[in-house]
């Protein structure tokens, strides 16, 4: 009930409303990637490499896609062919996919039915794959890594921080030494070392989970430390002592009396630290150490933009994944700030 109220308040603020809407639509796009994308992640077309975004025009009673001819193959220059275009069909048939792993469907928001034409909303990459389709599919990896990672971090952070704050003593001492050790290490360096050790033991389609686990393993220390401090303070309250004297199990106390008090902090901290995971994945994949081909992720797509040819010939559309990362991060930051102001303005100093 409380959560519902909070949500209403977020939407009543202009910034909160905008950022929440942006995030919701990004996630919706990621979930419906199969429907939104006209092509699958790896549908190549080697005759159309580095194709610029195709123009969508109106004519003959519907939307049409401008046809292009390759003028200069060495520089990958394309020119529109005057008067030639292909019809863009809405709600049409394309590649087959499964909904929830149960039903098969081949409907797409838009496709070009004509075998000679292709629609590239955001151009094509070095093997003629549609950047827009890959962007939508990549959103699945890049967006959900944040949600999954933060859940793991929060659980570990709460367990370690809560238990060591509650019990104190030797457990606390050693847990905090481990936390300090984790915090003293240069994160990105450790990430690189971890990845080089773990990667060969996993197949490329399991890489997603390996990365989530790695990012979570590195990120939990900060959360644990703050939660320990807060648990220490909450512990002093009379209701905790009352619960103790009634003989309640420590874990029950942690869950029933401590956790609800930490919830608002956890919510705000989680929202503000999700961008860290999105960026972490992007950085790793960008370095070629994260998500591997043939999967798509925003970082991986950006790494392909790191090519002298791209720089000199101005294939700007290959940088769109960076814009997508930027929009996600800024939306999360704004939402986190709005949440923090709503939940507890005093938190501002701590986070």
């Amino acid at each position, binding site marked *: 009930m409380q959560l519902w109220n909070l949500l209403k308040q977020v939407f009543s603020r202009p910034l909160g409303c905008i950022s929440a809407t942006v995030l919701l639509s990004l996630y919706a796009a990621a979930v419906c990637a199969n429907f939104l994308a006209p092509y699958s992640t790896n549908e190549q077309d080697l005759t159309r490499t580095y194709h610029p975004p195709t123009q969508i025009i109106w004519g003959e009673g519907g939307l049409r896609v401008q046809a292009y001819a390759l003028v200069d193959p060495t520089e990958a220059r394309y020119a529109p062919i005057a008067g030639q275009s292909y019809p863009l069909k809405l709600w049409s048939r394309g590649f087959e996919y499964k909904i929830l792993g149960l039903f098969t469907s081949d409907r797409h928001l838009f496709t070009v039915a004509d075998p000679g034409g292709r629609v590239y909303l955001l151009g094509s990459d070095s093997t003629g794959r549609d950047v827009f389709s890959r962007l939508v599919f990549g959103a699945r990896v890049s967006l959900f890594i944040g949600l999954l990672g933060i859940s793991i971090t929060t659980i570990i952070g709460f367990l370690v921080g809560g238990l060591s704050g509650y019990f104190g003593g030797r457990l606390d001492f050693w847990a905090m030494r481990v936390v300090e050790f984790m915090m003293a290490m240069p994160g990105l360096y450790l990430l690189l070392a971890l990845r080089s050790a773990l990667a060969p033991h996993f197949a490329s389609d399991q890489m997603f989970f390996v990365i989530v686990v790695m990012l979570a393993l590195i990120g939990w220390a900060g959360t644990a430390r703050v939660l320990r401090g807060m648990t220490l303070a909450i512990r002093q309250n009379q209701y905790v002592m009352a619960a103790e004297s009634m003989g309640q199990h420590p874990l029950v106390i942690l869950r029933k009396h401590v956790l609800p008090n930490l919830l608002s902090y956890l919510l705000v901290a989680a929202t503000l630290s999700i961008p860290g995971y999105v960026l972490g994945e992007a950085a790793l994949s960008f370095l070629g150490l994260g998500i591997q081909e043939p999967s798509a992720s925003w970082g991986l797509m*950006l790494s392909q933009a790191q090519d002298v040819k791209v720089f000199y010939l101005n294939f700007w559309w290959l940088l769109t994944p960076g814009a997508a990362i930027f929009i996600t991060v800024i939306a999360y930051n704004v939402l986190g700030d709005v949440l923090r102001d709503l939940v507890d303005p005093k938190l501002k100093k701590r986070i």
Partner: protein
Amino acid sequence: MIAFILRRLLTLIPLLLGITMLVFILMSLAPGDFLTPVKAQRDVPQELIQAIEIEFGLDQPWYVQYYKWLGNVLQGNLGHSWAYKLPVADLIGQRLWTTFLLSLCAFVFSWVIAIPLGVLAAVYKDSIFDRIVAALAYTALSIPEFFLALVLVFFAAQTGWFPLGGATSLDYEFMGLWAQLLDRAHHLILPTVALGIGSIASIMRIMRANFLDTIAAEFVTTARAKGLGEASVMFKHVLRNAINPLISSFGFAFSGLLSGALMVEIVLQYPGLGQLMYQSILREDQFVVLASVMMGCFMLVLGNLLADILLARSDPRIRLEGKR
């Protein structure tokens, strides 16, 4: 003070031991070693490979290797880089200097811009200027560093105003002293901007918040009440107090810059410590990885130590020894 510094440096020992051991375990978990590519070549004699394996202790389990490596390090021998065919100490020394130069530039760049911006934003609170600066800072904080670097490379390639990468030009060795300095500066501009923009935003925000906090303090009211001019109040009383907490972030910023430079260095192909670390991880150049991780850790701890010392210097109310 000296006791405090010594104690902090002593905590470095378990930290370095722990992290090097961790890296050792991680690297031994990865299949193959830095000899794998050599073994794949047909023309390298078996005897040579075996000799190297024995010399580096590669035929033994990781803890024996670790023990051997540790013994060498304690005698000041960081080992030999396989990929670069150089002693690791020389290699790291070279790279450390370039990274240090970049960090220093980014640091100066961000502070020189951020402090006046933060002060102005606080003095003209809620004005158009304040709002624009706040929005810009927000944007800057949300751009991933490596993406910013990528965009800068794009910009450099399109305009041709800046070199695309590296720390020096090809003909660097044949230039005069001034030309060499100019060349270095020219190569430093893009990495400095890519690295500095994020910290400009964060320092500016802290500065603005501090300044606003201090303006509300009672001694400022007193200063105004006794008839001091507004400029004197702002610069002599408010600014000095507001900048105090930032001085401690001096050290943190420093340690952060060194490890934060990794992505920027890789994208802009700046030959620094981060790039070295990345390449040697890919090549399984074990001793270089170990040494650069150690260096990174060392810098981090040193930066934090510097932060504490500076804070104690700038604020006499803080006593380091009496903390516990």
